[in-house]
């Protein structure tokens, strides 16, 4: 039986997480087990204070300060927020510089295009 996902206008959140690209596969797999019903991945490049990727050109090491990262975007109901954050924290974390950030945004409405329904049962 398919899990039921309750979405209603007031309790939907968007979780964005910028993570290491090399950990994306494992994070994606694990997130599927948290009961979310979908996610979207972006290829981005990120900068943060601290150690950068180094590329060479003409024998010079060039600080390639913007490093390829992956961003996950997940729309979840309020009660799923912590499970998702925990999962990301567990599998996207190396403890080294560059692990990335998670942020949570409020969502006013979320609509499933297939059904054009923005209330419960939207994703079944």
């Amino acid at each position, binding site marked *: 039986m398919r899990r039921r996902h309750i979405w209603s206008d007031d309790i939907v959140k968007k979780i964005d997480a910028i993570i290491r690209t*090399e950990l994306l596969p494992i994070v994606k797999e694990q997130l599927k087990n948290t009961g979310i019903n979908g996610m979207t991945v972006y290829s981005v490049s990120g900068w943060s204070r601290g150690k950068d*990727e*180094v*590329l*060479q050109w003409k024998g010079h090491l060039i600080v390639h300060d913007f490093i390829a990262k992956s961003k996950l975007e997940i729309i979840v109901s309020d009660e799923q927020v912590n499970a998702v954050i925990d999962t990301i924290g567990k599998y996207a974390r190396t403890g080294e510089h560059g692990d990335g950030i998670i942020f949570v945004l409020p969502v006013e409405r979320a609509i499933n295009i297939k059904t054009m329904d923005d209330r419960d049962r939207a994703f079944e």
Partner: protein
Amino acid sequence: MPLDASDTTWIIVATGLVMMMTPALGFFEAGLLRSKNSLSVIMQTFSGLAILSALWFILGFTMVYGQTLSGIIGGSDWLFFNGVPHEEALSYAPTIPGITFASYMMMLAVITPLLMTGAIAERTKWSAFLVLMIAWSIFIYYPLAHWVWGKGGWLAQIGVFDFAGGIVIHTSAGMSSLAAAIVLKRRKNFGTALLLPHNIPLAVIGASLLWLGWFGFNAGSGFITGALASNVLLVTHIGSAMGAIVWMLLSWKRSGRASLTAVINGALVGLVAVTPSAAYITAQNAFFLAIIAGLISYFAMILFKEKLKIDDALDVGAVHGVTGITGSLAVGFIASNAINHSVPNGLLMGGGPALLQAQAIGVGVAIILGFGGTLIISKIINKIMGLRVKEAEEDICLDITQHAEKAYLE
């Protein structure tokens, strides 16, 4: 015999064609790997072209073709190409200048070890790769090539025939690939969906240039132009075509959709299959040989990858190794004295089992030397300097950790 200008022209051109196969191999492999490790394999093949050319120039040629020391290895007559004749031929190729022969054979000596790059991909340290290539050339390829192709080599003595390298090149490099892959262990994520090819057009560019280059590889290996080279070219082309068709149909049957990566791998299988016999068989026999080799290699690929779970990343063991064995043994069945007077008839051509026996010995030796020797070399390198990058480096990728370069930037 005086030098022949037409033969020389053809071998010069063929040398160029075979030279190009090494970078082409890099494109083929890079396209089939993940983007993040694609530069590293191009680096390996392209640098390998430079380094192994120099090694052949300095050491290799004389070890393979120098005056034999009891059939085991060539003497130091031609160290650093000293004394290789410009205006006269060697007995190996009696109608072209000695340096033309030596240059042509250089290209074969370059690409052979580099075939392994497909097996050890995505996890091998750059420095360890360099040592592996050099050690493998000196301890495996040069001796084996001397045994089969050198005047007085002991395998040549017992009647082993290997036209363009089914034993010396494909069996040895293919079996070595399995050994190296075993020592290296599997890539992280092996067996999951995460290791798909990143740029199939690039892989097909490589495959196309390999196909073309193989015309030089096979049709050049007779060192003469004319009817022999013409027949070899046709045999080679038909082999490639039928290999491609068989793998295309097998992929279609297996997955429901005909696969382009299967087609290009199948073409290579066909090319490898006819390599040891190309000058000894008819195109009609090449047609059937490539079909059989196509079937065998496809199931060998499944066996290694799915049953034995050896992470030979691009199936060098199946595509080159198993097919090299198939093709080399096939010489013992279908070699035809009518096509080429220097070869005895194979079993199916009424020649009795002698040739087949010799071929079996040659193949066996190449398997043992290739697999066993590489196992030992890899383990020693692993002990001394480490063969594999650190886990974190593998996660990030070889391109940045080993070369500080990325294949693509926006």
